[in-house]
């Protein structure tokens, strides 16, 4: 794994070279929020931010995405036949994606690309055509707990390149072959810079002091965790707004709807939320998750019990802390998970 050095004053050139091939996006400040935006030049990039407000999952799983379209003309032979949307026409590059958000994409790969029969071609197309240049965290938030959910501030999983900010220069570590290729014209990093990056990693990891414990969630049967009394406490304050599910980098539930206007029709998928009563409502009127408690429990069970069972141990959480930061009623995911993991008190 090659470690390269790029002076920040040379960023403009580096980005200009990349722009000949990729559309480039990065978190940029807009009205007090860090939003993923298209980057025109290297000097627009900033490295002094915690994380983007919304996760970059939208690049692979847009909030609204047209899957297919049709002519909406029943009188014509092919007027009511669906035609799939084309894939991305230009490769993309996400600059300064945080390691937790990149890790989240690898968790979602297991959901969207589970097997040949259920291969989500829309997800796969965008994943294949997008390069990820990560930015290691030097200064994690108080709500970060990545180190206790198989991730970390310098975690490399899912990234093509990991950058470590060394002040006036960046250390770039090629992780995938694609990543190494991007860095091939840069200067080799000296041992001093490599050491500085390694020290920074240790420091960043040490600065994350909160976490979750999951050993008892893992060892107990599904129903044991599901039937715990703690849910009666957790669900009461929740207002089922679904904010957590939209901010979450691993939440991936969606709805599919048809839309028509004149001689055009399309089938779209939209982000959906398990907090919604309608989400599971049967046409008959029956609702298997008809109460607020059912829905709140579903979200946490899905991430911390069901997904590990189904996805070879992958947790549906990367510890980014967005849900905790954004929750209007101050539900802290760490409290909930640690309660799920508590010893039973009879």
């Amino acid at each position, binding site marked *: 794994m090659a470690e390269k050095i790029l002076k920040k004053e040379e960023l403009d050139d580096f980005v200009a070279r990349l722009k000949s091939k990729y559309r480039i996006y990065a978190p940029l400040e807009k009205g007090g929020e860090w939003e993923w935006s298209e980057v025109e030049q290297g000097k627009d990039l900033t490295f002094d931010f915690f994380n983007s407000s919304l996760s970059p999952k939208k690049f692979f799983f847009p909030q609204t995405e047209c*899957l*297919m379209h*049709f002519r*909406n003309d*029943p009188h014509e032979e092919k007027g*009511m*036949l*669906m035609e*799939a949307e084309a894939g991305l026409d230009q490769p993309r590059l996400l600059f300064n994606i945080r390691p937790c958000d990149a890790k989240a994409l690898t968790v979602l790969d297991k*959901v*969207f690309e*589970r097997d*040949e*029969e*259920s*291969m*989500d*071609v*829309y997800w*796969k197309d965008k994943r294949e055509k997008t390069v990820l240049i990560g930015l290691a965290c030097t200064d994690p938030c108080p709500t970060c707990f990545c180190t206790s959910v198989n991730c970390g501030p310098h975690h490399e999983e899912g990234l093509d390149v990991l950058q470590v900010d060394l002040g006036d220069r960046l250390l770039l570590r090629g992780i995938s072959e694609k990543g190494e290729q991007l860095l091939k014209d840069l200067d080799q990093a000296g041992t001093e810079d490599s050491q500085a990056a390694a020290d920074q990693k240790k420091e960043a990891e040490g600065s994350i002091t909160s976490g979750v414990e999951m050993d008892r969630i893992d060892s107990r*049967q*599904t*129903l044991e965790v*599901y039937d715990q009394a703690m849910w009666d406490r957790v669900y009461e304050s929740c207002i089922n707004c679904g904010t957590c599910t939209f901010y979450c980098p691993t939440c*991936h*539930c*969606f*709805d*599919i*709807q*048809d839309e*028509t206007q004149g001689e055009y*029709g399309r*089938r779209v*998928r939209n982000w*959906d939320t*398990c907090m919604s009563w309608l*989400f*599971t*409502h*049967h*046409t*008959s009127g029956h609702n*298997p*998750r008809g109460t607020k408690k*059912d829905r709140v429990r*579903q979200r946490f*069970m*899905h991430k911390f*019990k*069901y*997904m590990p*069972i*189904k996805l070879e141990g992958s947790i549906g959480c990367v510890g980014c802390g967005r849900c905790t930061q954004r929750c209007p009623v101050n539900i802290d995911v760490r409290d909930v998970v640690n309660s799920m993991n508590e010893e039973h008190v009879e």
Partner: protein
Amino acid sequence: MKNPYLPYPVRISKVEIATEDKTLRTFEFEFLNREDAAAFTYLPGQFAELSIPGFGEAPIGIASSPTEGDHLTFTVSRAGKVTTRLHNMEQGDVMGVRGPLGHPYPLKDMKGKNIVILAGGYAVTTLRSTMIWLLHPENRDNYGEITFIYGARTPGMLLYRETLEEWDQRSDVKTYITIDNEVEGWDKYVGFVPQIADQVSPEPDNAVALICGPPIMIKFTQPVLDKMGWTGDQIIMSLENRMKCGIGICGRCNVGPYYVCKDGPVFTKAQLDELPKEY
């Protein structure tokens, strides 16, 4: 790479009103493209999304058996937006079918065993598929005794009357057709499915039971089977939940860690006993 969201284009080749209250219709579909018919390989117990552009999709169990040829049969209750639209469509209309989805009944594991089928109301659809498949000359000898118990509210609410008659005439299947209350001219059974099951009292030894019906039927059939010594791994059920993608991604149809669409819809009673009752 196959796009799992893209439906196969099909033409409605036949529509029949299936019940006296006219809330159910049976549709036969033909694939517009020969290669799609070949790609759509399915077994009894699987379902498909019936896809009507501009209206959406509804997951429906496949009522035909692959042994019947290339066409697909679905019996659909008029309930929501998509199924109401479907009920207003006619022979010759073009729409889509997406599938086959989910797992079939464990036909391989059932080989050499006696099979008891318990069906109530219009949940009989995939069990019709199963019966046709089991009774096919290529398959019949691989299975032991077949007992088929099916109930509906009235004679006019029974699906597939002609096929039921055929089975009733056969010596290699014990058929018990029942209605809820006495009706003049009715010469078969009267009583709810659990009561008839109690009278028939199928032996659990080397046997498998397939049960599909409304929750109330399943609730009252369970103790009957328990009394006769049936165990959870011998009882196979098919679940329904609200679905969208049908391929285990969109997140709404799960029961515990398992998606009804992708990991089901067929589960054993033993499996369900260890999961939340979110269905």
